């Protein structure tokens, strides 16, 4: 049975196919991209494939935010500190040039070795990290820089100090800042899109997701612990709530899937970065022409309409 997303994609494909090739190569690129997405939707991922995504998304060699930054951005300048309390290394922020245009970047950052992992807190940010992100979002807004965010976190850090410093409220306000931004925003889930800690920096005009990334409301282990009362049932939980890119696209949560090298992003970070850069560039090109009012209105409408279609009325 074709889902809503599939129908929409098919319609777009047919429209594009019938157009004269006014935009030349760009348009055929778009055609290919849509066709790839359609193929992926039609091939419903099996439970094993879903779990494979969970493993690949958490692969210790998977490229992290800074691996992409050095391959995608020129003249990157990292910005530090939330101007209040701390500099949270689990979230990286900065300015750089993307295809010649200045952009602001925000991304979760995990660590490679034990030392760095502990310094980066495994990519789990404190409220201070989100406050740093918010100040850089506002900086982007002030200067009209497009914002790119890369999401890769198991979740916001669950700790006593994090709670005392207002983790929940900060995640809420970070989303609120994004709904107000006048600059174009492109987000990509590049690894783990873990719950509130992920959505805090993913309220974007275009939400992309790498082929083997996951995006979920709770970790498979957390879900299994609550519903199965056994964290060991994580595979079953993942199969039930379907955090893979194919399902996220089908549900309209993301706008496009960014392909990875065949065996996963970690096998070829350079190729992976090129694919990611192409997708982000394509999305930015679609957005930069829009007025700031238009951007904000469409961004809010995008999230306002998510999941409303299927709600049924009582008989």
């Amino acid at each position, binding site marked *: 049975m074709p889902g809503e997303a599939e129908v929409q994609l098919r319609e777009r494909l047919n429209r594009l196919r019938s157009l004269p090739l006014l935009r030349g190569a760009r348009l055929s690129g778009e055609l290919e991209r849509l066709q790839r997405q359609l193929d992926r939707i039609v091939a419903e991922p099996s439970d094993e494939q879903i779990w494979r995504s969970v493993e690949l998304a958490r692969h210790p060699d998977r490229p992290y935010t800074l691996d992409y930054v050095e391959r995608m951005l020129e003249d990157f300048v990292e910005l530090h500190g939330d101007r209040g309390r701390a500099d949270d290394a689990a979230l990286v922020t900065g300015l750089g040039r993307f295809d010649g245009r200045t952009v602001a970047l925000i991304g979760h950052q995990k660590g490679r070795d034990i030392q760095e992992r502990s310094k980066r807190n495994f990519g789990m940010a404190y409220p201070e990290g989100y406050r740093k992100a918010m100040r850089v979002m506002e900086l982007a807004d002030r200067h009209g820089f497009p914002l790119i965010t890369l999401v890769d976190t198991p979740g916001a850090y*669950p700790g*006593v100090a994090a709670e005392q410093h207002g983790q929940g409220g900060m995640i809420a306000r970070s989303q609120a800042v994004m709904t107000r931004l006048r600059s174009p925003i492109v987000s990509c889930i590049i690894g783990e899109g873990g*719950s509130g800690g992920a959505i805090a920096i993913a309220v974007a005009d275009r939400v992309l997701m790498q082929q083997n990334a996951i995006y979920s409301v709770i970790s498979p282990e957390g879900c299994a612990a609550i519903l*199965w009362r056994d964290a060991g049932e994580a595979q079953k939980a993942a199969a039930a*709530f379907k955090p893979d890119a194919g399902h996220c696209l089908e549900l309209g949560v993301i706008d496009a899937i960014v392909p990875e090298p065949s065996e996963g992003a970690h096998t070829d970070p350079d190729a992976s970065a090129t694919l990611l850069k192409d997708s982000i560039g394509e999305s930015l090109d679609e957005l930069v022409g829009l007025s700031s009012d238009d951007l904000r209105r469409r961004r809010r409408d995008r999230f*306002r309409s998510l*999941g409303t279609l299927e*709600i049924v009325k009582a008989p």
Partner: protein
Amino acid sequence: MAARIDVSIEHKHAPPQTDGRPHPNTCPGCGSHYRDDELEQHLNVCPQCSHHFPMRARARIALLADEGSFAEEAADLRSDDPLGFFDLRPYTERLAEAEVATGLGDAMVIGQATLDDSPVELAVMDFAFMGGSMGRVVGEKFARACEAAADHQVPLVSVTASGGARMQEGILSLMQLPKTVCAVEDLHDAGGAMISIMAHPTTAGVLASFASLGDVIVAEPGALLSFTGPRVVQQTTREKLPDDFGLAESNYRFGHLDAIVPRPELKDYVARLLRLFGNAG
């Protein structure tokens, strides 16, 4: 003779046990036990120690809205099962069971009312419906409440009691965070005010979205307001938790709340705020 004198008065109102867990009418604060009507009479607040028992959505509306003024909206919205979710039991079965048990279509009730004669839009959550979890219906109802408040140019009063996003609707539940955030932002852009009342518990996805965006945020005494619950924090970090971890009192001390308002004073407190917001000219 003496053997026949029953002096065990402490057993007279011995709290009934339900499979090893304390009865819901037994006060976790002081151990006093009450009949349903006794609790109701005291707004579900323990007369001995002021512990705030959970309050159902309908009772909450009766507490806040002027008598007969509440007109419910979007009562017919029901969730379907977008993922075909099945844990130990199918999600559709859990939904049906929750509806039968609570008499509600989902974990939030919205509608127009007056509160001390001030017109207001209410969005009230009910923890008894699947832990007050936020799926698409809660998100949609909250968004509609914001739109209704903006249309009628009245303030929105939300009362939250929720364990967070509803796992059974997967990633679509997570998307209700930005959805409700967008709704509050639109309400604010339209000049509308929002008063957020956090009842026990307001945690995870609801705390990390609309509940934290009120122009004024108040909580009930003793309410747990944390992004991550104490058990998970304890397990993950092995930290020793402070006694008041995540409670309203701790949140107040750290600057996350405007006030902690006991339930019997809540209506007067909100009425005062509504008069202030309604007086902008």
